[in-house]
């Protein structure tokens, strides 16, 4: 009697899960593909090879690569500092790193406008630099601004993944190596890195996913279509044009990002698989 009820509960829960899974996750993916191809293959190809799309793809890649590099360097340094040493304010520092996770991305974009924008307090400093060096650097409404906003929203991803691993592993091996006279970088390369490599890769994958898909933060700080727009902004511009054609084009460009998302998910699962196998 009890066993039968058990089986009923089991399949009921699996059923609920599948229903949720299909409606919330699978159907949206199919919807993108169907709508992207609504006007046929040729217009799909035209949409994804349009000038604006290519320019947006370029900006997206630039922002993603730079954000990834910055966050990796930061993540490694922060994880090392926070787990290997004890210092005043360590918990505060650890909390501050996580700030971007709980802040609206719109605020991230806004913060850079308030700092480097025309009425921001850093604007005179920037003007001075431009005048003395004869350069023409603009940090808002420009590609560097897009990069800054992307760095902001992805900031904690790498450190977040490595810190727990380093905590769990402890510092004994590094201490032993240091006692035997190993240099800092050698210790990192030979002892720490093998422990964290899968976690590092995992954090980098999450960071990439967020970086190429960021919308709110970048939207606040990027206003020129065809120059500073990223792919999500290009999708927004096409969608907001509102005609049936441009909406189909928006979905065509979206399908590029869906493909990137699927690659990310596959990569993430491979990394997770290997990471688990090592344990």
């Amino acid at each position: 009697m009890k066993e039968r009820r058990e089986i009923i509960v089991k399949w009921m829960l699996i059923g609920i899960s599948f229903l949720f899974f299909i409606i919330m996750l699978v159907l949206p993916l199919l919807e993108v593909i169907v709508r992207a191809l609504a006007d046929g293959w040729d217009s799909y190809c035209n949409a994804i090879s349009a000038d604006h799309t290519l320019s947006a793809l370029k900006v997206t890649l630039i922002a993603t690569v730079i954000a990834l590099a910055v966050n990796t360097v930061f993540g490694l340094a922060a994880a090392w500092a926070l787990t290997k040493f004890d210092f005043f304010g360590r918990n505060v520092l650890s909390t501050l790193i996580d700030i971007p996770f709980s802040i609206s991305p719109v605020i991230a974009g806004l913060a850079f406008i308030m700092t480097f924008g025309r009425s921001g307090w850093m604007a005179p400093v920037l003007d001075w630099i431009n005048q003395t060096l004869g350069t023409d650097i603009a940090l808002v409404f420009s590609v560097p601004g897009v990069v800054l906003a992307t760095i902001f929203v992805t900031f904690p991803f790498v450190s977040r993944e490595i810190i727990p691993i380093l905590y769990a592993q402890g510092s004994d091996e590094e201490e032993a190596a240091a006692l035997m006279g190993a240099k800092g970088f050698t210790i990192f390369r030979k002892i720490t890195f093998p422990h964290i490599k899968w976690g590092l890769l995992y954090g980098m994958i999450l960071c990439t996913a967020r970086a190429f898909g960021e919308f709110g933060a970048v939207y606040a700080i990027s206003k020129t279509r065809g120059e500073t727009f990223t792919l999500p902004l290009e999708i927004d511009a096409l969608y907001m044009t509102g005609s049936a054609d441009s909406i189909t084009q928006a979905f065509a460009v979206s399908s590029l990002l869906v493909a990137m998302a699927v690659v990310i998910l596959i990569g993430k699962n491979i990394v997770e698989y290997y990471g688990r196998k090592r344990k």
Partner: protein
Amino acid sequence: MKKERLKKQHSIIPGRGMTLGITITMLSLFILIPLVSAMLYSFRMSWKDFTELITRPNVTQAFATSIWCSLIAAVINCIFGTILAWVLVRYEFPGKRLMDAMIELPFALPTAVAGITLTKMYSDNGFLGRALERVGIRVSYTRLGIIIAMVFIGIPFVVRAVQPILEKLPAAHEEAALMLGASRFTTFRKVIFPEIMPALLSGFGLALARGIGEYGSVIYISGNSEKNGTQVVSYIIMSKLNSGNVDYEGAAAIALVLLILSFLMLFLINMIQHFAARRTNA
């Protein structure tokens, strides 16, 4: 205790100055200085103007919409997230690996893509929208739509918070409770729920924080109508940045309130995690 203090003073591991320097410099440059500037910017407004702006009907309504929708979405996510985590940990069934792999799709899929796709799916020319329309439920351009978008972006937070806890939880505990004659529901409530509670709360907090500040996935499906109460806070902030009627001070002021809300939430999450860590160590 004594040993720990000793270690504190003479860590022989190199790189303290360099890594701490990089960490603090980068954190200040990319996060803290811009954030503090934004906060200071809102102080350019007088207190009177500030309160006048914050208590404007469309602003208070946007805060109510953001908070309520993200609360409801986070609760829905806790229910479905726990079921999904449970099913993925405890049962074997065809398609399980795929389901497990795709749970994080909302993290990988850009929010703008999610936004326009959900809107079209639930609008009256999308097939789900049409089906729901027939039973009298409208999703696109209503608060229900906002909640659905927030459920979409929040679900991985809860599943990924609860899943590892369930994996570690020995099945023997439940079996013992069931053998002693407890019903399944009682077993869940008394044996399993207390164990996953801290993780569930932290997943709840993360989903909630994400929902309150969410922009990309929400703005298309919401329709952003003041009359229907479907403007969210981040939409209000963004609308003050757009070329037609730029109001940086107003944007900064509303952002400050949202920021304080987010910090309170971050603080709560950290408290919960701290509490949970102490409990498991004891």
